[in-house]
């Protein structure tokens, strides 16, 4: 390992500009003559729009336009799409209701886009928006996930019972048979609480139309600008791809919420031509709460069947997933193919059957949020196994160990073929770091202080490196999920890497450069990573699903290999040797068995001056591209252990210890990986203890600001104990599995298992707020007194 190569904890190259406020985010960009958009949003969860009268608004100072859904329709602009087709059990396609960028006839959630006001300044646009007269006819709202299908009100005409799909996966008959012969069945009702993503940078967009070139540019907060261009072109029909450039500059966090193609950027691009001015929109935090796609929101009944030897025989899951008022870009895939295929967890489960009903409600659309389906699956599995172990009186760690998959590859009953892993190794290491042996002593010490102490496990697995294109295509995806890269070597030997991945906090400028340093032997300052601009990078699928290492860097590796091959040919001419005799090591091309060698930069120069070879024998230049399509998902896995101490007087849960042992395969930068683990755990703890999107019965979002939506803070978290084990991923050239989502996936069940261990029963849901924990403890008091 070199100081800047693979495995080195290199400090992040990008942090200098971020920490000193020199990042360039979409809202930092000021386009000549830009006007400002303000979206008039629905105050009602569900209503018919009887009439919109913009006359008074148009008369306000500085107003350039007031545009509505009628204007979109008149221009033939298509609706927003959902890019993953799910079929119900009966073979029928999912019921996708219309999703216009500006409402047409009906609003379906509080925050839905009614009209856009474009003015010289944002303040003028806001003032004018108050003058747009909208007459609504209010309708009853469908809000609750569990009862949406029974509602007399339909969110969309196409789905009269609010059911988007009734999907299933697995073998029902085999699973029923497993339960029929079970010695013990553990049953749980689980709510996976709705979350609001809360990236630190809110969404923003600038649409700009260049009349002379007859083309558009969209600056936007996107995790995948090429996908945004594809959808805006091919489906929404704003402009052909060759007439639309999408730039995602510095982006301040996404967590999934910036994957999707939203109404606002669509309208900004379209409106820029209508008003003949660049149109900028920047979300405020309240708008972010109302209109960024939310995450999770499942109601589940789950059952686990055991034999007399504490072996798992089968798993049966019935989930209702709230998809909100419209199908967001990838919403249909999250509670289906990103969820049920993970229900085997780390366990050898012979039979699994999962049913998932997707439902419409009059709430903000729900889509992928850090982990996307896999946290929901992990919560089901890890709560079930913990409770099962408790019910049969077995140590939860031993119960897990007994049921772990031990031989690889392993085909689960739910699609996934796990390639490699050593789950017991992670468990052993986690038990040691967490001092599991000392827990009972610590519990006694807590009891002396009048506190309740508990410990909880989470043995998680996730499917990352998303994903083999053929596989996802067969499951309904509208896109392939490969990645592209281009490695451009300059004549002086410096290197530019163009990648289809997109960094919005992950540190690609550092980790991708480390790969180049490692492979080409150039200095890290000699490497630039270029991303986020469809005019620079030809195509790419973007960053989500912990895919940039496993897929994005594999594409770069392929391109680097091609550069080395070409370099060998150039070096062979330059050193008058056969290219078969050229070796490349530590940044030097050398002729085997001789002392002749050339530095990488010297060969690059020879490639460009082309003095030593004929153009007929070898093309000048040193630039190679590659597309990498993975052959399998990757399967990061690990064990997280949470230890809590609860104050029974107040219900406050304090996380005393949090241990995370993860197997991410080969790690490029352990410091960055550890940071990803920390951030993921913080979000997972947030879901378990703090965060909750609450709607009232009329469909108003009660938690639409930080006054009521509880974000995790540093003080809510202990200093994490992080360890790693390594089984390199066999399916990609670097052995990488991915690390971005692990913490958010693993942490929630670890925390809840610890709390339920402390309070002595399973009757608590997420988030386990002080009030909820106090109530849960309070309920048990009479029972305990009676014992």
């Amino acid at each position, binding site marked *: 390992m070199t100081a800047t190569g693979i495995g080195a904890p290199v400090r992040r190259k990008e942090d200098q500009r971020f920490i000193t406020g020199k990042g360039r985010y979409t809202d930092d960009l000021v386009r000549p003559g830009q006007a400002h958009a303000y979206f008039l949003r629905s105050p009602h969860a569900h209503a018919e729009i009887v009439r919109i009268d913009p006359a008074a608004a148009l008369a306000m100072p500085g107003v350039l336009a007031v545009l509505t859904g009628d204007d979109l329709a008149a221009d033939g602009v298509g609706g927003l799409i959902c890019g993953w087709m799910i079929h119900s059990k009966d073979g029928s396609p999912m019921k996708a209701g219309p999703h216009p960028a500006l409402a047409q006839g009906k609003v379906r959630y509080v925050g839905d886009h009614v009209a856009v006001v474009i003015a010289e300044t944002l303040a003028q646009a806001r003032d004018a928006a108050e003058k747009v007269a909208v007459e609504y006819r209010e309708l009853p709202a469908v809000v609750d996930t569990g009862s949406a299908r029974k509602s007399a009100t339909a969110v969309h005409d196409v789905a009269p019972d609010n059911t988007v799909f009734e999907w299933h996966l697995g073998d029902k008959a085999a699973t029923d048979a497993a339960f029929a012969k079970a010695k013990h069945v553990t049953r749980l009702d689980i709510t996976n609480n709705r979350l609001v993503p809360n990236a630190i940078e809110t969404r923003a967009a600038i649409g700009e139309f260049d009349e002379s070139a007859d083309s558009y540019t969209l600056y936007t907060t996107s995790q995948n600008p090429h996908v945004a261009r594809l959808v805006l072109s091919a489906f929404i029909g704003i402009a052909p791809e060759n007439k639309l450039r999408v730039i995602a500059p510095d982006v301040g966090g996404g967590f999934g919420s910036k994957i999707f193609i939203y109404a606002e950027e669509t309208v900004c691009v379209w409106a820029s031509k209508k008003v003949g001015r660049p149109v900028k929109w920047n979300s405020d935090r*309240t708008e972010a709460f109302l209109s960024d796609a939310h995450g999770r929101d499942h109601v589940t009944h789950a059952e686990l069947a055991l034999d007399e030897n504490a072996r798992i025989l089968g798993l049966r899951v019935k989930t209702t997933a709230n998809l909100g008022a419209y199908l967001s870009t990838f919403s249909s895939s999250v509670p289906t193919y990103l969820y049920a295929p993970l229900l085997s967890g780390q366990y050898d489960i012979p039979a699994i059957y999962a049913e998932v009903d997707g439902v419409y409600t009059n709430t903000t659309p729900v889509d992928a949020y850090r982990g996307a389906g896999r946290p929901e699956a992990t919560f089901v599995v890890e709560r079930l196994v913990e409770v099962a172990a408790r019910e049969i009186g077995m140590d939860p760690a031993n119960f897990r160990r007994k049921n772990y998959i031990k031989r690889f590859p392993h085909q689960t009953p739910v699609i996934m073929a796990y390639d490699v892993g050593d789950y017991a190794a992670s468990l052993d290491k986690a038990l040691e770091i967490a001092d599991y042996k000392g827990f009972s002593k610590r519990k006694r010490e807590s009891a002396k202080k009048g506190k309740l102490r508990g410990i909880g496990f989470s043995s998680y697995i996730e499917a990352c490196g998303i994903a083999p294109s053929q596989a996802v295509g067969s499951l309904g995806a509208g896109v392939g999920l490969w990645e592209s890269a281009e490695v451009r070597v300059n004549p002086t030997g410096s290197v530019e890497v163009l990648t289809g991945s997109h960094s919005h906090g992950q540190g690609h400028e550092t980790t991708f450069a480390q790969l180049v340093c490692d492979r080409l032997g150039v200095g890290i300052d000699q490497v630039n990573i270029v991303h986020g601009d469809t005019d620079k990078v030809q195509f790419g699928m973007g960053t989500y699903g912990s895919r940039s290492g496993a897929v994005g860097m594999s594409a770069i590796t392929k391109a680097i290999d091609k550069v080395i091959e070409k370099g060998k040919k150039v070096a062979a001419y330059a050193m008058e040797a056969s290219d078969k005799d050229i070796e490349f090591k530590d940044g030097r091309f050398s002729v085997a068995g001789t002392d002749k060698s050339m530095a990488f930069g010297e060969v690059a120069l020879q490639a460009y001056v082309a003095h030593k070879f004929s153009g007929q024998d070898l093309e000048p230049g040193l630039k190679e591209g590659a597309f990498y399509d993975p052959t399998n998902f990757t399967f990061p896995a690990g064990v997280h252990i949470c230890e809590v101490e609860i104050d029974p007087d*107040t219900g406050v849960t304090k996380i005393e210890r949090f241990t995370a042992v993860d197997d991410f395969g080969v790690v490029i930068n352990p410091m960055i990986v550890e940071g990803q683990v920390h951030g993921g755990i913080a979000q997972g703890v947030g879901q378990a203890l703090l965060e909750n999107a609450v709607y009232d019965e009329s469909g108003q979002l009660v938690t639409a600001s930080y006054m*009521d939506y509880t974000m995790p803070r540093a003080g809510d978290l202990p200093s994490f104990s992080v360890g790693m084990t390594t089984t390199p991923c066999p399916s990609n050239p670097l052995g990488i599995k991915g690390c971005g989502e692990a913490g958010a996936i693993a942490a929630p069940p670890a925390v809840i298992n610890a709390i339920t261990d402390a309070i002595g029963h399973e009757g608590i849901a997420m988030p386990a707020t002080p009030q909820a924990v106090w109530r849960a403890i309070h309920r048990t008091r009479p029972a305990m007194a009676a014992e």
Partner: protein
Amino acid sequence: MYAFDYHRPTSLRQAAAMLQKTEDAMIVAGGHTLLPTMKQRLAQPSALIDLGGLSELRGIEKKGRAVVIGAMATHADVAASDVVREAIPALAELAVTIGDPAVRHRGTIGGSVANNDPAADYPAACLGLGATIITNRRKIVAEEFFQGMFDTALDEGEIITKVSFPIPAKAAYAKFRNPASRYALVGVFVMKRGSEIRVAVIGAGSSGVYRWSEAEAALAKRFSPKSLDGMSASADDMNSDIHADSEYRAHLVGVMARRAVQAAVAR
């Protein structure tokens, strides 16, 4: 935010005159409640009269048996004041728990008291210590000043200039924070001065800050946390929201009162 005029008077007299003659004008001190409200377009003053230029409203001093704090003293000023820390450490400790560093360096005691937010901390200290609120026109004792949520005895055009806190023998403040906003879900300020006992509760009651007389009576017999064992406030007239229903709040009042007494006794 709607458009508004901005004035920065240089004397209290000038500020009062501006407030009198400008319709729908509002005073801004630290602005940590008013400005967010204006940004959300929930307040629309025609003009803001900024008290930031009035040095006569600053300063913290000990006067006889009281600590007198200028209305424009920030929470950070109070927290760091040697006078406060020596005479009424509970008050300095309370100031440290308000908001975050940015809030503490802008927000003022006068602004907080005038706003009488039912989840703010200072009203509990004022009522708990038996403070007197001094305005450009008169002196108002805390019992009469706080008149329910966001409501005070201040008249139109009246400006708080100082708050005078009599020095207690023992005092402490215990706060249970709203998990999201970090405001007081329940805050209890307890004080003993000779035979006088006060227990002031903020955050919990639906009419804002109030004195918990049952607890005061119990503590009058013996100023010890044990005197409050098993006591919780009545759930009637308690606030209720997604973070804490009235029953939980009533319970927390008892817990926080015991913890405050514990801290006061240990001092």
